[in-house]
């Protein structure tokens, strides 16, 4: 059933080309950041360093024919860490390297392949990389069937791909509602995921090792929560450049349950605490505190986010990735651990929390964030792939109206600046700020 060795090797060589290119890209960024002594820049540099380390690890496994998996956040990466299984994300490029110079060419190439343009660009790109042979074929794969339709279809298409159809894949099935029955069910899915991984790799899950990992990741989440509180300070100590995205990358992707990750969080909290005590904001004159209710526009972040700060004194106080109610997982026994992981990865992980189930979950979150973070306006960027979110604009507007906080829906593609150009976005936001008397 497996692919023959020669073919696999060929696929691996090609699959590593882009992968290595990306590693060099992160090395380049690391070097850039290294030149700036600023503490926060150094924190960012650490994130790019651990990113490079992961690329190195996967390349080593691929070249030495050792097992590595295609994995996912929000599917209990604690398990892969405990099983000592190196993993990479097939959605890697759009999520991590969306500012890479080849991204737009790849978007066009994906379209040329026949992937519909109204499909989420991140999913489209991920499928393109596999169809075009630009992803290293893993030993086996864990996929995700939430939060959106495109994710489900992406994984089906990966299973179907001629070259990848022999790579075993397991997807965890998400329950829709937030209740104990759903948690129990998802815990069962995670156990089946473990069985799958044990079957297709030479690794076994050791429960004590899992406990160690979870105890460490509990510490990471506790620190993250501490950090999230610090962003309530006025002025806000950090803006769009540091926050939820990095915390997520460290705790859910690169340093899951690893002391180095915990140390990173500790530094983050220490630095930020100092700034809060000194009443030091990310910009000198904070005039607008906004809640960015989505991911950052990864593909063109530098063309837009700094403008908000410079032109309007507008600070991103909270975003979708930053507002996560991670709870510690109860490590008493196997059962409590799996249920805790189920809850964490289903109801507490960003995006999956907001986009998976019914609208009430994000509705109550918006209300809390606006109040606790003293938000002046809510921005729903409306990424073209987030169909459920854009199907919720009426509800978001209503909540904001009740809270008497201005709300705006932009409508953009987080990865492709050509969908709505940064200039269009600026124009729309500018008019909105002026009309509402903000700034």
């Amino acid at each position, binding site marked *: 059933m497996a692919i023959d060795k020669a073919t696999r090797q060929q696929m691996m060589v090609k699959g590593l080309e882009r992968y290595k290119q990306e590693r060099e890209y992160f090395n380049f960024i690391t070097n850039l950041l290294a030149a700036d002594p600023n503490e926060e820049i150094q924190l960012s540099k650490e994130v790019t360093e651990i990113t490079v380390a992961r690329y190195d690890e996967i390349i080593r496994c691929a070249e030495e024919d050792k097992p590595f998996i295609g994995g996912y956040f929000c599917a209990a990466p604690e398990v892969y860490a405990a099983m000592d299984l190196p993993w990479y994300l097939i959605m890697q490029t759009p999520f991590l390297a969306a500012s890479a110079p080849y991204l737009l060419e790849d978007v066009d190439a994906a379209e040329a*392949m026949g992937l519909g343009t109204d499909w989420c660009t991140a999913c489209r790109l991920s499928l393109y990389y596999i169809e075009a042979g630009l992803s290293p074929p893993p030993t086996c794969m864990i996929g995700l069937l939430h939060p959106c339709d495109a994710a489900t279809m992406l994984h089906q298409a990966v299973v179907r791909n001629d070259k990848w159809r022999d790579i075993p894949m397991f997807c965890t099935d998400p329950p829709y509602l937030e209740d104990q029955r759903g948690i129990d069910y998802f815990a069962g899915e995670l156990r089946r995921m473990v069985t799958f991984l044990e079957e297709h790799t030479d690794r076994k899950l050791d429960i004590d090792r899992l406990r160690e990992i979870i105890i460490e990741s509990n510490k990471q989440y506790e620190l993250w929560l501490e950090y999230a509180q610090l962003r309530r300070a006025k002025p806000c100590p950090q803006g769009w450049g540091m926050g939820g995205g990095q915390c997520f990358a460290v705790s859910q992707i690169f340093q899951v349950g690893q002391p180095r990750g915990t140390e990173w969080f500790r530094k983050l909290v220490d630095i930020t605490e100092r700034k809060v005590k000194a009443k030091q904001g990310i910009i000198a004159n904070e005039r607008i505190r906004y809640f960015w209710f989505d991911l950052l526009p990864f593909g063109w972040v530098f063309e837009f986010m700094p403008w908000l700060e410079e032109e309007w004194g507008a600070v991103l106080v909270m975003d979708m990735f930053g507002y996560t109610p991670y709870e510690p997982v109860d490590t008493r026994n196997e059962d409590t651990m799996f249920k805790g992981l189920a809850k964490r990865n289903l109801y507490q992980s960003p995006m999956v929390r907001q986009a998976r189930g019914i609208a009430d979950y994000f509705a109550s979150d918006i209300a809390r964030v606006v109040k606790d973070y003293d938000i002046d306006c809510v921005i729903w960027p409306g990424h073209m792939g987030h169909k459920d979110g854009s199907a919720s604009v009426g509800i978001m507007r209503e909540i904001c109206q009740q809270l008497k906080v201005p709300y705006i829906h932009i409508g953009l593609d987080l990865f492709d600046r050509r969908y709505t150009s940064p200039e269009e976005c600026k124009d729309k936001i500018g008019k909105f700020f002026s009309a509402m008397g903000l700034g």
Partner: protein
Amino acid sequence: MIVGGCDIGSATGKAVIMKDGNIIAWSVVPSTTKPEITARQAMDEALQKASLTSIDDLDYIVGTGYGRLKVQFAHENISEITCHGRGAQSLCPSVHTVIDIGGQDCKVTSLTDNGKVLEFVMNDRCAAGTGRFFEAMARVLSCGLEGLSSLAHNSVKPANISSQCSVFAESEVVTLINEGYELSSIVAGINHSVAARLNAMVGRVGLSQDVAITGGCAKNEGLVHALEDKLKAKVMKLPVDPQIIGAVGAALIAIEKAQAKVEA
């Protein structure tokens, strides 16, 4: 045997008359509000040029194009996708990919060795890559369609126009004008952006061997160069006006049909 092909598009009507497989006359007339009248006008002009007195002199007529159902004198109608493919390959046998840029839509067709359609894609949702996109741009630049064609030189560095939506592209172009960009550079930018769009469509059917561009926009040399650049393939020069390829294809099919009728 004398046959006719009549291609009624949204902007122009075209007619071709063939005798024993050779084009003896053709015409291009602007579209009226009624496709049946456009068809009549185009055919009458072609008949006159062919020194024929009546439409009854034609053994068989095939109608095609957006208004094909309204070509009342046609014996049959065939979609423009098939006709453009047939026309382009018969005039230039190495062509296996045809890009038809019409007024309202654009189509990319891949062909078999004997001129049959293998696969096609069609864009009719947005103006990107269509005649009306160029019209909108020509209006903003107040240079007319001919001006648009003559303004682009290969040597000019194209201005960056990222949006492929005509509405947004229009505002980008206005910005570029205000920023003092050279007109030729803006025009080159427009051509590049359309070429990128068409390139994606070509990708969907797969590029095979040589490419031909049909339809009025094929006369825009700047676009042709930009497209060659993107496709990394040679765009073949067609021996007749690219605007009449659909009508040529229709006439060629008319020959087949007429023969089949005779045999039957």
